[in-house]
């Protein structure tokens, strides 16, 4: 990230390309790069996904643990996002360099999944006041080639979709102490209801236009972008502006509308692909990092 330096000439070239609806890599303004996604590639986790889009490479691992519910929300489980901007991605992330970006991404994820409409924390409760599931979502950014938010959003959704939580056969209170029995069959799992999980769409404002899925170079030409999370049922669960620029009110509403259309389409495509992958069953060959 730190290495990419653009001259003003290069910036103007990109800008003109976007004005003409013909970007440097031949895409149109509202076109995504092709993505590669693989789920359940890490057997040690409860759910995992790896996503490639352009040079961006994201790995998501999900761990599920038993925990005690918060005292003020006794019948809700917990969902936590942790993002690690590793220094392998870019030298700029060395030390504490990636912390701000990491906080930003995990905040957007938390906001996106906050509404009950998207993720109902009550489904994670086992025994009110005593036991609940806690889902840790760990996002590892291995390489960044622009459009981190969208990539992370898709990868997280895919990983959650692949998550298998052990089935609990009996949960009783024994003298005030919780007693929990897990199913003997390790394949006997429950899956999360991912039907209304959000995905994240970034609309990057460059010049007078806005584009989706910007590359690193394009991101550098932009002063402001809108990050929104879209639920499959057409609701928006979070919006936040990034960058140091401001946006006109009309542009803002137009960007939202465009984001809505793109979000719904992207979501449908993602779910279709995940379904297709799932049909291969457990015998599917895992490519992992060998590809």
């Amino acid at each position, binding site marked *: 990230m730190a290495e990419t330096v653009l001259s003003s000439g290069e910036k103007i070239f990109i800008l003109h390309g976007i004005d003409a609806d013909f970007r440097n890599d031949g895409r149109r303004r509202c076109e995504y790069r092709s993505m590669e996604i693989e789920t359940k590639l890490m057997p040690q986790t409860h759910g995992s996904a790896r996503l490639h889009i352009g040079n961006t490479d994201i790995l998501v691992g999900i761990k599920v643990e038993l925990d005690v519910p918060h005292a003020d929300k006794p019948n809700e489980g917990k969902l936590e996002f942790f993002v690690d901007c590793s220094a392998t991605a870019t030298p700029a992330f060395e030390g504490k360099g990636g912390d701000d970006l990491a906080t930003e991404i995990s905040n957007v994820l938390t906001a996106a999944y906050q*509404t009950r409409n998207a993720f109902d924390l009550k489904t994670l409760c086992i025994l009110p006041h005593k036991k609940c599931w806690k889902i840790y979502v760990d996002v590892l950014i291995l390489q960044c080639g622009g459009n981190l938010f969208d990539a992370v959003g898709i990868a997280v959704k895919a990983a959650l979709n692949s998550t298998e939580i052990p089935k609990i056969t009996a949960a009783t209170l024994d003298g005030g102490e919780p007693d929990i029995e897990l199913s003997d069959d390790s394949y006997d799992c429950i899956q999360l209801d991912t039907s209304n999980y959000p995905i994240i769409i970034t609309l990057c404002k460059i010049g007078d236009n806005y584009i989706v899925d910007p590359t690193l170079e394009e991101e550098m030409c932009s002063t402001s972008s809108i990050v929104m999370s879209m639920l499959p049922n057409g609701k*928006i669960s979070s919006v936040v502006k990034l960058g140091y620029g401001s946006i006109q009110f009309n542009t803002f509403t137009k960007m939202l509308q465009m984001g809505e259309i793109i979000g719904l389409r992207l979501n449908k495509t993602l779910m279709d692909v995940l379904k297709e992958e799932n049909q291969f069953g457990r015998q599917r060959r895992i490519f992992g990092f060998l590809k």
Partner: protein
Amino acid sequence: MPVDQRRINGPEVSVPYHIYSDFDEKSDKVKHDFSKRSDKRTNSEMRKIFLKIGIVSQAKGSAYIEMGNTKVVCSVFDPRELSNKNGYCTQGEIYCEFKFAPFSCQKRKIHQQNAEEKQYSLILQRTLEPAVCLHEFPNFQVDVYVMVLDNAGSSLAAAIMAASTALANAGVPMFGLVTASTIGIYGNHYLMDPTDTEEAICNTQPDKEDDFNHGIITLASLPQHNQISEVFLIGSIDTNTIKQATEMLTAANKDICPVLQQCLVKTIMKLHNEKK
């Protein structure tokens, strides 16, 4: 958790007494009456704003804002050179730190910044950046500290306004003032400038109603330039509702702007008269 040797520590676990409520709060929330608000406002009415400038004598610029029971203090300090940066920055930077006082919320806050406060700090920074002439102080950083003394809802909006007036008070070159307001959405109710209980209601979704709009939008804008400087939305809302709500917020932001301006002018006039 490791013990912090630099503070006096209480017991390892302690619980707020609010959780031992006699009545079920959840059922109370559902019954919330939307036809009238607890402070007798109409749904589109904002709380009265009280703004005072220059309350922190040690700071370069400062402001105190009160919106209903929400109380926020902000102070801005002299620019200082950017440290630990390799190379020269052609633009200045704004560093924001947002903190809730430990006693400001229903639940006691710990002394370290939590995730929410860190997020608000970043939002505050992005809100102010479009308003400040960053090119006027290259390689320098202006520190903005915000402390919420009492959070009775819309504290982010209050913090944004306090910060923008404090920056102006400190004499930091700016393109214009930033004003902000919050709206809570619950079904087809639009609650301007929600209180903390209203915020809590807007954050929850009633059972078995998927097609239900709920959420909170905070919008900061530069009314003098008709620009949006930051939007922060959380909840589950459809696009049309967002559009309608942001229109209301932009209008509100425009209305607030003269209040901030007048307050700044008054302070300057007072200073001027004293010098005479």
